[in-house]
């Protein structure tokens, strides 16, 4: 790789990235404005106590950072998968069910309602991580080695995953009674901010460090943009694609921990239902091309919180229950149209003309 072309490429990227985060920011601004006008009470945060007598902050904003966190964590992995393989993993909801089931299986052993934990939580989490990574490896190998379309490859686990999850626990619904397990989806004693948000922050920091200090980001984008040239430049596209699916597996395990911890139990058929669609939407909302290539991680993460913002807003205004998905659909339609190449070209043309005029005027 010659340095001048690389730096050129980089500056090109950073230029686009600055562009890209505009989309979720605009959506966020729009939602904020709407809520400010409709009811400023939306932004009120108050301090109270929960039934265990711990101080907790409550309010819509807290709910958003609380419930949006799993989605944001998933969006990290989904962005990498999208960028490298040019497709999406639609099995994340089902793999969350599997990983969650594994966590409970390890914690509860063979009893469905043990008095004490049968294993430390960290062990349960690591086992779940391993299983989720194996699921990711399964998807990744189908995509990377067998060159199956990502959506088709992940359809296998999408259909079979929830049955496997039920099978892991013999279709019983274990309930964890230990209080310390509920910390991950609730509050740490004495800390008024919901734990999922902290877990999400830790994930963001790790991701940021990995992208900054390793070449992963660059390699993933190179593979996504052009597989052949990246191979000619000494990369192994197959392995990088495979790796992104395994990394998504880690994100899935973290989300699963939060999900099962929220209620200290699991329901195989509905846990994390339709979350794959929200995760893909987060990536799209972040302005990332769903056909792969360039990506902007912070835009995806912001996109995830914007989706939760939208959901919470819809709940607040008590939108008719059957109309809820229609509103989300409207957002998706706007997004898809906005990100269509034809529209983008028009917009950038318009933008160029405007800036050219300005330059002419200033000159």
């Amino acid at each position, binding site marked *: 790789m010659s340095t001048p072309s690389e730096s050129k490429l980089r500056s090109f990227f950073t230029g686009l990235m600055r562009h890209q985060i505009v989309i979720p920011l605009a959506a966020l601004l729009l939602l904020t404005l709407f809520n400010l006008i409709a009811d400023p009470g939306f932004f009120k945060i108050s301090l109270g106590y929960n039934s265990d007598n711990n101080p907790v902050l409550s309010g819509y904003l807290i709910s958003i950072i609380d419930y949006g966190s799993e989605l944001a964590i998933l969006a990290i992995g989904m962005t990498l998968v999208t960028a490298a393989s040019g497709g999406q993993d639609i099995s994340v909801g089902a793999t969350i069910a599997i990983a969650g089931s594994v966590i409970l299986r390890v914690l509860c052993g063979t009893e469905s309602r043990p008095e004490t934990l049968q294993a430390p939580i960290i062990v349960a989490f690591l086992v779940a991580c391993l299983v989720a990574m194996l699921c990711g490896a399964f998807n990744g190998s189908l995509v990377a080695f067998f060159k199956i379309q990502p959506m088709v490859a992940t359809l296998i686990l999408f259909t079979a995953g929830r049955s496997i999850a039920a099978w892991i626990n013999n279709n019983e619904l274990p309930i964890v009674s230990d209080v310390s397990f509920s910390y991950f989806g609730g509050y740490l004693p004495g800390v008024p901010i919901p734990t999922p948000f902290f877990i999400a922050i830790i994930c963001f920091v790790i991701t940021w460090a990995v992208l900054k200090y390793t070449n992963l980001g660059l390699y993933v984008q190179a593979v996504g943009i052009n597989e052949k040239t990246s191979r000619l430049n000494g990369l192994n596209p197959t392995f990088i694609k495979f790796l992104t699916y395994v990394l998504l597996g880690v994100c899935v395990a973290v989300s699963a921990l939060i999900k099962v911890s929220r209620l200290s139990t699991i*329901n195989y058929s509905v846990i994390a239902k339709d979350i794959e669609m929200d995760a893909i939407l987060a990536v799209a909302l972040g302005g990332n091309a769903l056909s792969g290539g360039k990506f902007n991680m912070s835009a995806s993460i912001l996109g995830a919180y914007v989706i939760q913002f939208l959901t919470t807003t819809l709940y607040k205004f008590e939108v008719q229950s059957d109309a809820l998905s229609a509103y989300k659909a409207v957002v998706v339609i706007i997004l898809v149209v906005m990100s269509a190449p034809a529209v983008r070209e028009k917009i950038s043309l318009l933008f160029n003309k405007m800036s050219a005029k300005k330059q002419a005027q200033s000159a």
Partner: protein
Amino acid sequence: MKTRKLISVILGAALCSTCLISCGNEPAANSPADTAANNSANTGAADTGESKSDLIKVGIINNDPNESGYRTANVNDLKATFTKENGYDAQFAYSLKNDEQITYAQKFIQDEVDYLLLSAADTAGWDSVLQDAQKAGVRVILFDRTIDADESLYEASIVSDMLKEGETAVEWLKGQSLDSYNIIHLQGVMGSDAQKGRSGALDKAVTELGWNVVTQQTAEWSAEKAQQIVQSVIDSGKKFNVIYAENDDMAKGAVAALDKANITHGVGKDVIVMGFDCNKWALEELKAQNWNYDGQCNPFQSSYINDIIKKLEAGETLDQKTIIMEEKGFDAATITAEDVEKYGI
């Protein structure tokens, strides 16, 4: 480069094993149906001599027992009733797919069963196979679910009345004679039988008695969604004193949100919690006075079916084709440990 190759080899091995594992799992998920079918074929061949004696041959087609806690309880109940000791030679087949169920039905008809017990996966497509059954002299009894076929094609149909389940719950709620009713209504998946029945009963009472519905949302049977919806109501600062959740999971999610906000719930507390389905863990919550009411959705049809078969064998005629099961509602104030054991699923 070498290390990279090594890593890819290791990971390749790992994914091969996952392939094997997950391939191993998939048939495992289906295997109950297959083995059941195989068993039925075997028993069918082996028991022909025996069945000419006084055992009544029944073929039972049901949905997959892993579908839900309700189904597991249903399957276990049927297995406990239709035994050799009770005078039955029973064969079981499970599938969530209508066409597979129809294939099993044809197989059972060829095996010359006396009775075909059916919980259909889908309402449509049963006419021709039931006509075959009629020609072959096989009597059909539907349980749990109805089908779109002429009434003459089956002897009886044993079902739950979801509207009545809702009405029983609403009656109970009326009986609490609260000063004001401010209700959070958590609905199931819109359009499902259980949702329509259970929502219908509450909607009617709301319009008739002027109760206040604080919010009415579908949480799609999911505890997480229920938690978010209730959280949203709490954040808005609106007052409520009743949570009417159309299944136990959603009630559990709602309670998680209440706990977070330090709102007391249960017998003699600030908020009344109502659920449906009578899961064992839910009845335990009732017993611990954390919830107030749980409505039953009765999975125990086998005693009804048993009665019908006995009647038909004795040459009696049935008074009515559609038999609606008795379904209870449990009050936290009166529930006993035996109730939890007996009715918990």
